C-alpha cells in the first residue's frame, strides 16, 4: 500500500515536470511521422503490383509503435544522470521511500510519454488509410507499455551504473541500431536468411513487432501474440527486479 502511494507521488512529480516542457511530445511524434512520410513510400514498390498507401501503413505502422516504445523508454538514463548530478537521487535514497517507487515513477511517466504520441500516430495514419482494429490495437499498446517499462528501467539503471552521459550514450546508441535492425520494424524479417532470423530471436523487440502486425489486423489470439506476452511479461518482472536492486545499491 505504501509502495503504491509513493509510486503515485513520484509519478505525479515526473508527469508535472514533463507537461511543463511539452517539447517531448513534438520530438516523440517527429520520428514516427518522419518514418511514415519519408520511408514508408519506399515500401510501395517492393511488390508487384505496387502496394497502396493503406497497405503500406497497415504493414508499417504497427512495427513503428515498437520503435516508439523503445525511444520513449530510452531517455530514462539521461534523466537519472541529471538527477544524480544535482543530488536528487541521493536525497531520495536517504529518505525511507521504497527504491522500487523511486524507479517506478519515471517508468510510469515514460509509459505515458509512449502512449500519447502512439495514439496520435495511429489517428494520423488512419486518415491516410490505416485500418484501425480497436481491440487488437489496445492489446498491442498494452504489450508495448510493458516494453517501454523494460527499456525505461534498463536505461535508468545503466544511468546509475555509468554515472556519466558519455558512457551511457555510447552503450545505449550502439545497442539501439542492432535492436532496430533485428526487430523487423523497417522490413519484415520473413525476407531475412535463416541465420539472421535466428539471431533476431534473442531480441525482445522481434517478438513485439511480430505480434504487432497480427494484432493490428484485428486477430486477438495467435501464436505470435502469445509468444510475445510469454517473452515480455517475464522479462518485465526480471528487469524491474534488477533495476530495483541497482537503485538499492547505487553509490553516487
Amino acid at each position, binding site marked *: 500500500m505504501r509502495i503504491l502511494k509513493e509510486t503515485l507521488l513520484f509519478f505525479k*512529480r515526473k508527469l508535472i*515536470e514533463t507537461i511543463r516542457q511539452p517539447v517531448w511530445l513534438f520530438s516523440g511524434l517527429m520520428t514516427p511521422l518522419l518514418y511514415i512520410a519519408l520511408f514508408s513510400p519506399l515500401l510501395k514498390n517492393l511488390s508487384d503490383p505496387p502496394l497502396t498507401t493503406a497497405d503500406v501503413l497497415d504493414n508499417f505502422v504497427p512495427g513503428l509503435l515498437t520503435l516508439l516504445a523503445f525511444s520513449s523508454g530510452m531517455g530514462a538514463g539521461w534523466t537519472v544522470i541529471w538527477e544524480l548530478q*544535482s*543530488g*536528487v537521487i541521493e*536525497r*531520495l535514497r*536517504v*529518505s525511507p521511500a521504497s527504491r522500487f517507487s523511486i524507479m517506478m515513477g519515471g517508468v510510469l511517466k515514460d509509459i505515458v510519454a509512449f502512449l500519447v504520441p502512439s495514439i496520435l500516430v495511429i489517428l494520423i495514419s488512419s486518415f491516410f488509410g490505416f485500418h484501425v482494429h480497436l481491440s487488437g490495437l489496445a492489446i498491442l499498446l498494452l504489450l508495448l507499455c510493458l516494453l517501454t517499462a523494460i527499456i525505461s528501467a534498463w536505461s535508468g539503471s545503466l544511468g546509475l551504473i555509468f554515472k556519466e552521459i558519455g558512457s551511457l550514450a555510447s552503450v545505449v546508441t550502439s545497442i539501439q541500431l542492432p535492436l532496430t535492425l533485428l526487430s523487423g520494424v523497417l522490413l519484415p524479417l520473413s525476407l531475412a536468411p535463416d541465420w539472421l532470423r535466428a539471431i533476431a530471436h534473442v531480441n525482445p523487440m522481434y517478438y513485439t513487432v511480430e505480434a504487432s502486425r497480427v494484432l493490428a489486423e484485428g486477430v486477438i489470439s495467435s501464436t505470435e501474440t502469445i509468444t510475445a506476452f510469454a517473452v515480455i511479461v517475464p522479462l518485465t518482472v526480471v528487469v524491474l527486479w534488477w533495476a530495483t536492486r541497482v537503485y538499492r545499491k547505487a*553509490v553516487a
Partner: protein
Amino acid sequence: MAMTNVIEVSDLKKSFRGSKNKTVEAVRGVSLFVKQGEIFGFLGPNGAGKTTCQRMLTTLLPIDSGTAAIAGYDVKKKPNEVRKHIGYVSQLGGADLPATGRENLMLTGKLYGMKHDDVVKKISELSQLFELDELLDRIVRTYSGGQKRRLEIALGIIHEPEILFMDEPTTGLDPQNRANLWTHIRKLKENGMTIFLTTHYLEEADELADRLAIMDYGKIVAEGTPLELKRQVSEEEVARRVKREIQTNATLDDFFMKMTGRTLRDTGKEDVK
C-alpha cells in the same frame, strides 16, 4: 549528564578497491559520539575520509566493519528506521530543479508519511524560518545559490528529524549568505535539533560547533571543544615562546596545522577569498 548520545560510532571501517586492485582504506577505525542537541563539527582535509564516514552514517554506503547507532538504531541492521530519524543535506543539494520549491517540500513531506494538511502547515512554518515566502512557487532552477541552499535545508528538516547531517553547507556561498546560513543553523540548534556538520572551513566549525573532531588519513586525530583544541596549541606556543614573552592567540588553523601538517585550504576544492 542528562544528555544522551544520539550518535554512537565505534571502530568504523571502510575500504575501496582502488586502481590496480589495491585496497584503499578510506576509513580506518573511527569512533565518536554526538550528544543530543549539540552541533558536532566534523573536520578534515579533502580525502581524509569524512564524507565516506558520513555516507555510512546516513545509510548511503554499506559499512565494512564496526558499529554505528543513530537515534538508537543500528545503521547496519535497521537502515530504514535510521532514515526516518535523520535529515541529510548533501553537498550537491538535491532539490529537484525543474520543480517549484513548494512542490519539492510537498513531495518530501509526503514521502516521510506526513498528512497533506500537516505538510501545508509545516511549509508555511519553514518558509518563515528560512525566508522562502516569495520563492515557494518559483521553479528551483531560477533560485540563487543561497536561496537554493535554504530550500535544501528546509527539505532536510521538513519531517522534523532528530539529527540533521550537513555536508559542507556553505561551500560556494558568498560571505553574506554564509553568515546568514550560520544564523539559520544556530536557530535549528535552539529548536533542539542535533546537527552533524561536515566542513573544511575552520572558522565555520569555530563559529558553530559545540564539539568537533578532526579527521585525517581515515582516522580521528583530535577531538574536543573548539576552545580546548585552541588552548592546547596556545599552551605549547606559550611554553615555547615564554622566554620571548610573546602572547599568542591560537586559532583552529594552528591546531589543524599541528595535527595534520597541512592546512585545510591548501587541499580545498573551492577556496574562498
